[in-house]
């Protein structure tokens, strides 16, 4: 039994960051930064409950989308004249544990097949499972470097190419990265940092009432998880519905030239590297207006999501002190 997402006390920023990604997966994931013991992992695991369905090619091990790109298996099938059949699957949160090995990430030779039949077969790894799903890495800053390299490689291309042990295989690997980290324990490489669409911050609650509420809900959940779950069922469902609606309306949200101009103004003011920040800020703002049921992106929407998209991109060099940059960001946001 997982602690219900809606029952997490406060931490609205973290919740919103996750929800925006469910609404528009192309935002590209979320990095949750925060102190120890602030329900980071709990929130991500709880997210699984709210996720919508995706359409995939029937029977595909890699969740290939109907419109492609396709894996080697599917391609072979179509070339032989096979038909595309649809199948609905629930979106999942796939976990990448810290102790994972390289071959489990990218996939490897199927040992059983090799020994029993002497045949070479590809056995999918975590990247295959994660295609079109959430890929969750707890303590992402503690992940081994060569695993990070593998992730970066496929995250950039959206494709996992395997050439090892005499196997050659290609399959799509487009996943939404969700990572948690406690910055006290070590830094994350800027390159990987940039891969996360948005970054949210969690802090422990300072207000007494909220803290008491945390304890109350926690002990209620521990005593009888099932009853607790039922109690929150209605809220869970209404949130799930809200997300589905927002997803449907996403494409209908109007993006005016003024909006574009504002976004660019913020990013150019801050002199950021690359264009990812612009794109993601816009996407996040759009998802946010869809979520709040609006038809057009407003100034408030941009103001709400801008820190999400920019917070982790302000720092470009290993040792830069970002306090002045952060101030600048706030000043710019006030002005627009």
């Amino acid at each position, binding site marked *: 039994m997982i602690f219900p997402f809606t029952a997490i006390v406060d931490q609205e920023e973290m919740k919103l960051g996750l929800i925006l990604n469910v609404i528009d997966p192309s935002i590209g994931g979320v990095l949750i930064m925060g*102190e*120890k*013991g*602030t*329900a980071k*992992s709990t929130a991500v695991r709880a997210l699984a409950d709210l996720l919508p369905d995706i359409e995939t090619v029937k029977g595909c091990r890699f969740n290939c989308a109907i419109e492609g790109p396709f894996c080697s298996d599917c391609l072979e099938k179509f070339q032989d004249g096979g038909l595309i059949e649809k199948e609905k699957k629930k979106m999942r949160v796939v*976990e*990448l*544990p*810290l*102790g*994972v*090995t390289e*071959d*489990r990430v990218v996939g*490897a*030779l*199927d*040992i*059983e097949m*090799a*020994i*029993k*039949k*002497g045949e070479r077969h590809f*056995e999918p790894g*975590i990247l295959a499972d994660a295609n079109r799903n959430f890929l969750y890495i*707890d*303590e992402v800053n*503690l992940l*081994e*470097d*060569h695993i990070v390299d593998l992730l970066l490689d496929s995250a950039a291309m959206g494709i996992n190419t395997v050439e090892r*042990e*005499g196997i050659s295989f290609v399959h799509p690997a487009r996943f939404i990265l969700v990572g948690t980290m*406690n910055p*006290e*324990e*070590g*830094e994350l490489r800027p390159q990987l940092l940039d891969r996360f669409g948005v970054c949210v911050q969690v802090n*422990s*609650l*300072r207000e*007494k009432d909220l*803290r*008491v509420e*945390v*304890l*109350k809900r*926690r*002990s209620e959940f*521990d*005593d009888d998880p099932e009853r607790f779950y039922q109690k929150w069922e209605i809220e869970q469902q209404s949130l799930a519905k809200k997300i589905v609606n927002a997803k449907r309306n996403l494409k209908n949200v109007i993006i005016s030239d003024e909006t574009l101009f504002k976004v660019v103004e913020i990013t150019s003011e801050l002199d950021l590297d690359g264009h990812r920040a612009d794109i993601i800020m816009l996407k996040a703002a759009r998802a946010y207006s869809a979520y709040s049921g609006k038809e057009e992106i407003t100034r408030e929407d941009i103001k709400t999501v801008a820190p999400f998209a920019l917070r982790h991109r302000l720092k*470009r*060099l*290993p*040792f*830069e*002190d970002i306090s*002045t940059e952060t101030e600048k960001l706030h000043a710019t946001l006030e002005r627009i």
Partner: protein
Amino acid sequence: MQHLKEYKINFSDFVSQENAKLALVLNAIEPACGGVLITGKKGTGKSTILKAFMDIARFLHLPFVEVPMNVTEEALLGGIDIEETLKQGRRIYQRGLLCRANEGFLVIEDINIFPNDILSLIFEVQSRGENIIEREGIALKEPAKFVILATMNPEEADFSPHFLDRFGMCVIMDEIKEKEKREEIIKLNLQDSKKDDDTGIIKIILRARDFIKKIKVPDEIKEYITELTLKEAILGHRADVFLMYASKAYAVYVEDKEVRREHVDEVAPLVLIHRKRLIENPPTEEQKEDKERERNSEERENKEENEKKNTLSSQFPEQGNSQGRPSSEKEEVFPVGESFNIKRILLKRDRILREAFGKRTKTKIKGRGGRFVRSLIQKRDDIAISATVRAAAPFQSLRGRKDHLIIKEQDLRYKGKERKMRHTVIFLVDGSGSMGVGQRMIATKGAILSLLVDCYQKRDKVAMILFRRDRAEIILPPTSSHELAMKRLNEIPTGGRTPLSAGFLETYKLIKRLALKEPQNRFLIVILTDGKANCSISDKNPYEEVRDLCSILKGYPLIDFIVVDTEKKDKFMRMDLAKKIAEWLGAKYFQIEDLESENLVNIVNLNRCFTGLLNKNSMHNNT
């Protein structure tokens, strides 16, 4: 005849240490209490009490699994037994330690000298309550809910506050001062104990475990708990949750029907002691004395060592106190100078198999991870499947293959793996007054910054030791946070005399401590000095001291040295003392300018990359 018994002390007989006993019992009653960390000096009975507690756990039919120091990830998490698998032709799965501890206790002795990566794995599994295995082509989940009982001796090594926070309770076990009690302990160790056995406490625990399900924590108590944690300014919400369960467990332990404030007060010290922010409690008098004593004894040792070799006459100019010009006594903090791209410094590879991580020097890898470079016949951890199958292929018809491949012992090939590893880089920085002359410190700080960037790129751990005035101190304990290193670098003051030997001694002590924790760690010591030692720690000539310490350090395995000479090389005042030191250490010798990479492409990149940073620095300095 009297004889020493081996860990046969009954839990209830254990003299004093009520806190430790209480913490263990509470965890046996309510696993949600979150485990116990027992800290204390050597010989205070940390392990003994756990061993005594083991009997109780056994009686309650709770698993009690010890994690040995040399545990591998495979053993911890479980994995596939490849050799069996190849023989039998189907997957054979080995259960890990963590799964065996399910519903029981996991015991980690000397947790602070465990490798951090192993600990992160353990805590990750614990927080999830199940073990997810994703390796070598298997993916499965198994429940793994356990309570961690750990011991540590804080003298041995530091322990990350992040791991500390995962423990529900922490108990400090100190040696007992009262004479009668000490006598009692000795007796206990000599006699066969025939006093009350543990049935009493076991009964209490059994009843409490039953009863705890029936009681609830009233809201008023929850409010009281948050008041307490807020008052102590404790980060995160773990403390609240742990405290709630601890109070509940305590209430049933004292046979109360409801949880009351007194119960919370009673257990609060156990739960909160390790979460208080350290900044707020300065070291107590006692600790200070301890430190003082420690330092004195070490100095004494050193003197003795030095006295043995007190025959050498110095070939260096006597510098002594005359160097201490008034100007150098003045304390100044210089800004960080310009940084540059560091020349590639190649260090020797060694043949040790290790679990490595980082990007500096290539090493052979044991265990999982690493790049598979070649298949070997020598036995290693991982079997190279394709090479094994290839080796077996020619003999299949000879061996009479029917359905599945026949693989024999001699076909097995293993994966030889390689990866780059990080080093622990210790910067030994001269902060004496002579470094301030002609603004040498600015250039030196620039050089350190450049080296730090290099270390960051190679994922090295860094530490910094500053020596000035009459002593050396670790201004940056080993860390992966290069951010913090940068901060400390900015703060380095200059002024006073040059206790070079104290610097070397501190380095030696640090390395010894670190090597205990990670014996295969490679060290790179970067010494930035002009070499003008003029302050000794014993009554010997400072240069003799330095030379002796150099020879000790040089004899230590797995250390590389770099000496960066910060002396201004003009025609009149040139002593090249740092060069001499480099010779003694067998170190690579550079002057600051030589460190710079000559590669044009690099320089172009660097300029682009660092202009921003430099602007910021200069801005920072102006303010």
